């Protein structure tokens, strides 16, 4: 049998993504004012976060800004144990870490983001969480470091 060869290449690729007015406005409010903005669909009235230009359900154009709070309710969670490559750093993300789908107060969609807690016994669907912000904001969703359980969160638990 022939010796079998492999040909290896490391490819360094870069991209420059143009965004849009809604992205710029969301980032401006997040970075400069520490506020989260969603866009409301004029037809179904759903508030989208992340904001986008079109409602997938109604195919209507979105233009009405709605302020969304940086607190919300956990709708799904997991503790990740495999070190996937963090696309924002290129490094494996230290494990374990908590992930959740969080419905921010005022939004109809959920946002996937990190949790401060990584013990599954202390997490449950319906618990209330609050964003922990980075001190110096750069204008990305990573300006929220993660979400932490709210004080007295059992009392505030959404049933």
């Amino acid at each position: 049998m022939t010796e079998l060869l492999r040909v290896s290449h490391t490819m360094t690729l870069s991209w420059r993504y143009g965004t849009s007015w809604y992205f710029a406005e969301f980032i401006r409010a997040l970075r400069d004012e520490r506020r989260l903005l969603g866009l409301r669909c004029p037809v179904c009235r759903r508030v989208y976060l992340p904001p986008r230009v079109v409602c997938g359900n109604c195919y209507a154009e979105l233009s009405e800004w709605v302020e969304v709070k940086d607190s919300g309710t956990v709708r799904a969670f997991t503790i990740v144990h495999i070190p996937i490559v963090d696309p924002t750093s290129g490094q494996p993300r230290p494990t374990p870490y908590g992930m959740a789908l969080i419905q921010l107060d005022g939004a109809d969609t959920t946002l996937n983001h990190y949790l401060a807690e990584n013990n599954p016994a202390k997490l449950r669907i319906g618990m209330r969480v609050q964003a922990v912000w980075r001190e110096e904001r750069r204008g990305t969703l990573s300006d929220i470091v993660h979400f932490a359980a709210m004080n007295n969160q059992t009392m505030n638990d959404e049933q």
Partner: protein
Amino acid sequence: MKRVAVIGTGQTKHTKARDDVSQTELVREATTRALADAGITIHEVDAIVLSNMELFEGRALPEMWVGEGAGGYRKPVTKIATGGTSGTSACIAGYHQCASGLFDIVLVVGWEKHSEGATQTGMALTDPLWDRNVASGAVGNFALSISQYVAERGVTPQQAAKIAVKARRNAARNPNAHLQMDGITVEKVLESRMLADPVHLLDMCPQSDGACAVIYAAEDRAKKLCPRPAWVRAAVTRHDQPYIGDLDRRLVTMRTLRDAAREAYQRVGISEPLKEIDVAEIYEPVSYAELAWYEALGFCAEGEAGRLIDDGVTEMNGELPVNPSGGVLSTNPVGASGVIRVAEAAAQVMGRAGDHQVADVRLALATGYGVYAWSDVMILSAG
């Protein structure tokens, strides 16, 4: 619209790394086997549809570089990529080409060589505006949706593990399957490394090198070429919104699969899928997903999926065997995986599934699942 049937299928042996063949040669291996199964030569093929996730292997325009492995020289060749659904979407596109009457014989080939690329990093290249900042890969995202499904339906880790065990036991009778695990048990699944709560390593699919081909023929050719062709009775595809947070409890509702199945059943006239369908090859990248798909596909009422696996209803000797091939949980070359579902369903109808053949198959179901919520459904029948 013409009636169309699958008249031949071909697969490679799926495995962790196929160093002995290039991608082009891998594709040719599956193609050659499908041509032999159909009893035709490449010169009788009128059009070709390819399926591959190009980003994983970093090869732009794989249809150009690899297409000649599918015999694409001077033929109409197109490529379909819709994530995990790529293979079933390519099968649906190939079916449309044949049913339209424009082509008599259409070849569909899907492949992936995960050993050649950077799949995990490739999968992290999601939407750069939002999603990429908060990515956790396929496993993390599944685990999120599973937490909702478990909370609402009460399925247990043991029930999910039974799905994982069923898949690997079935794979042991399929010589093409990638994972060959002797003595797999529920305990071993639950003892395997935790990837993302509650998903253990053995709850997840592997990454495989492999290719699979399916050949369609329009009615008159199909009848001449094949003693028992697998007739396409329905082919439905549905997409949803892009962000995982847009979806209403993804695995609980799974509205794309629900909608696609409902439409497919209507076309065929199926009212009781569990009773009427003889075998199903469904795209289950993780054990819990198969339980969720049972509900979305109407195999059971909501909340009854755990009972279905507890009662052995979907085992090889059950009322509706699901994934006799071992499924995606045993073999996952992504671009090929959907084609494998259709090829396996067709082989069951044609009576050519070998040691994992289910007796007397007249009606077979194949599904595809991609990214957060894309779904494809095909139904094949003997008559």
